[in-house]
């Protein structure tokens, strides 16, 4: 309420050389923002892509395209709005532009067990930005186990996968992540992963399979 009144007061009629004032105005304009240039570039160049949806808002599915090339072990994907999802071996390690972003994570133990399709315990560290703009690390203890095998349809192909469940508990937050790991190649083709406090869980699915996914890692 108060927030709205203040913004309304500020945006009565401003025009400025200052982009901040224009950004403020943008809050009240209906026109869709221009896609981020890096998204346009990546999506035109045939980069790997995925569909993503925040699970509390399943109607809004967004396409994300990879903007880093294969030389980098950590893959950064960007959406048309410029929001970013960052993955390490298919596991979400960072977000940008969602609010309360995860800055970085350390989850080697989880990644190893999930890709080995094994059972066991793992420790996960996730650092997120809080409302005071401070980086706050959170530790989680996770139990990982395989669930059933099922095919996931990517494009016209049914890919046989092993479902993996990662159940994590932390001091303030707990969550359960699901991964569909391709039986050939070991790539995570579909997942449902926790992306921090205000965002919650995100559903992810590969849209284009890079050729490397069909080869052993």
């Amino acid at each position, binding site marked *: 309420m108060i927030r709205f009144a203040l913004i309304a007061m500020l945006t009565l009629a401003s025009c400025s050389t200052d982009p901040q004032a224009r950004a403020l105005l*943008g809050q009240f304009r209906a026109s869709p923002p221009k896609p981020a240039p890096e998204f346009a570039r990546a999506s035109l160049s045939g980069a790997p892509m995925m569909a993503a949806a925040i699970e509390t808002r399943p109607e809004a599915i967004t396409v994300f395209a990879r903007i880093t090339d294969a030389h980098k072990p950590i893959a950064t994907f960007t959406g048309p709005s410029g929001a970013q999802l960052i993955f390490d071996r298919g596991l979400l390690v960072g977000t940008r532009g969602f609010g309360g972003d995860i800055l970085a994570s350390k989850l080697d133990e989880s990644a190893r067990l999930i890709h080995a399709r094994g059972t066991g315990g793992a420790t996960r560290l996730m650092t997120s930005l809080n409302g005071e703009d401070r980086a706050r690390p959170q530790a989680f203890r996770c139990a990982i186990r395989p669930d059933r095998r099922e095919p996931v349809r990517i494009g016209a192909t049914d890919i046989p996968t092993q479902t993996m469940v990662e159940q994590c508990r932390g001091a303030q937050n707990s969550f359960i992540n699901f991964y569909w790991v391709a039986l050939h190649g070991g790539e995570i083709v579909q997942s449902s992963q926790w992306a921090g406090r205000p965002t919650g869980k995100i559903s992810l699915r590969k849209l284009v399979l890079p050729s490397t996914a069909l080869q052993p890692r």
Partner: protein
Amino acid sequence: MHSSPSCGFLTPCLCLALICAGSTARAQGLSRYGMPGLIDTPSATTMPDGTVALSADARHGETRLQGQFQITPRISGLFRYAVLRDFFSDPGRRPDLFDRSFDLHVLLREESPALPAFALGLRDFGGTGIYGSEYLVASKHITPRLTLSAGLGWGRLGSHNGFSNPLGVLSDRFKSRRSGSVGTGRLAFGNFFRGDAALFGGLEYQITPRSRLMIEYSSDAYRAEAKRTGLSRETALNLGVDYRARPNLTLGGYLLGGTELGVKLNYVIDPRAPKYPGGIERGGPPILPQADLAALGWRGDDISSNETRLSKALAAQGLALEGYAQSGHEARIVLGNARYGAAPEALGRAARAMANNLPPEITDYAITLERDGMPVSRSEFRRRDLVALEHDWDGSWRSFARAKITDAPNRPPPLAGRYPRLTGAITPYFAAAYFDPDAPTRYDLGVQVAGKLALAPGLSLSTVIRQKALGTLDQSTRASNSTLPHVRSDQWLYDKADGPVVHRLMADYLFRPGSDLYARLSLGYLERMFAGVSGELLWYPQTSRIAWGAELNYTAQRAPQSRFGLRDYRIASGTLSAYSDLGGGYLGQINAGRFLAGDWGARFALDREFANGIRIGAFFTLTDVSFDRFGEGAFDKGIRVSVPVSWLTGQPGTMAISQTLRPIQRDGGARLEIANRLYDEVLGANAQVMMTQWGKFWR
């Protein structure tokens, strides 16, 4: 006036007896006074640290608007504006009482399994006296849902079933309390905990997580209201109910003394919980691998292409390349940041832009942050650290530890074509005046043109011109009765000016006379009421928690209704200033010297600044002007709040909405309003402050 003696002493004694049993959960509710409590009586609880609670309370004949701030985990302060209708019956006098008051509430001890929590409070300690009271209160949970509070009150809270002050054993002085006002705005030291005392107490029951039921035995007899407005209480028991309609919005109703119905509302704001924590701006581009960079074939010695490429990349992040130099494997830039409220975010994005847009043989990056062209601090990064920490779980802290942040007394020369340059903005403006009994809120809305012509690094001409569109500020007829030179109290005359008003028109030169030193020279129409020259020097080393400043001004008062005219009043003013970062986000400031009315004294200020930019503070000024000569209010004091626009929108920005609220503006202790005092200009780029905001480096 009627009371119910049957439960006179019993209720509070029972409360005290019961208070020593029970569990330790903690209730939070606000009383009619906007402070932790039940209806009229306080409780020994607190609000969550750092939160602001705005409250409104209305019953027949009385309205209160209140703002409470939990200053520390245990101390909270409150400002209240109250209107009591038909309070005065003297002929020829305005019948309504408009009252401004301050309260303080201190938690002395938290609740433990065996013992209750204790708190001490001062209501209306500023001395107008209408709500003046002090209390000592204890609270204890009997069950997780049922809380009992009981205490001893003085002043207003000692007016029903009062007894001789137990503090009288210490000194006879405690036995009597001066009645009525001790003089508006003065501290009522001489009255604290004096006069008769009385017991009060109450029970609150949490019916559901959202609703609370309260019953209290109040020791407030409402004497003044009974005498002046005919209020009659039938009992000392008050009943109330609260309902939390939204997580931060609570509505309530109550029955006072069996006869008076009222409603209240409070809204809690947590500065640490913006709608978009950490912002929702786009992330910066990830760092390119070394091999990819090498494949691009950029040449290390091609300085002008390196500069152009970097300038473009920075512009895409909303940053400006103001200067560029390179030698060997190091590149040095001057970074202009008008986009990111937290300087570390600008540094993080600029460092990544340098890593991605300079040839691979350039591995060390030095970024100088500037303010209006004046260099402030220099941060050095190495490419291999950036690569190693980009996705490190502890990358924020480690990148701060590995960055080398030093003073930057010098800067590389500006890029060709950066000067002169003109920037400007046309925005709406809102100006308001509060607390005039004729009209408690007056305002103006209009259009403001702000322009700045930067001539060279540190040298600029700037102006702010306002054209009022609509408003009521010019309707004030309250002429100042001040016997001091009218340096501030003629505001009402300035508000009557017609046509475009030149708010400011000045030339500034900001420069670095030496290491750790900053200087400013200003000349022109410095503010709405004064024109002249102003010079300032600041000593503020990087990573220092302390800064010292000196300022000297020679100014003439501007004529209220003339665009550029001056009055005959000339004054030399100036202060020596000490600024201290007290830790935990608390900033202290003392400005001692000569003020605009020629009075000598000092202003003391304490602000709490959250790392996200929200700032809440209070100040007071004591000078050699006597309380009587100062007039209503006795001395200059006020509270101030600043909220960054980015906190509201989630978008990056350096703009903030700021408001200073004084109970009354008089002429004593008035300080020149300089738009760009050095401490506030350079604070954000000091290593000490950047450390608290470094979480945004990798944002």
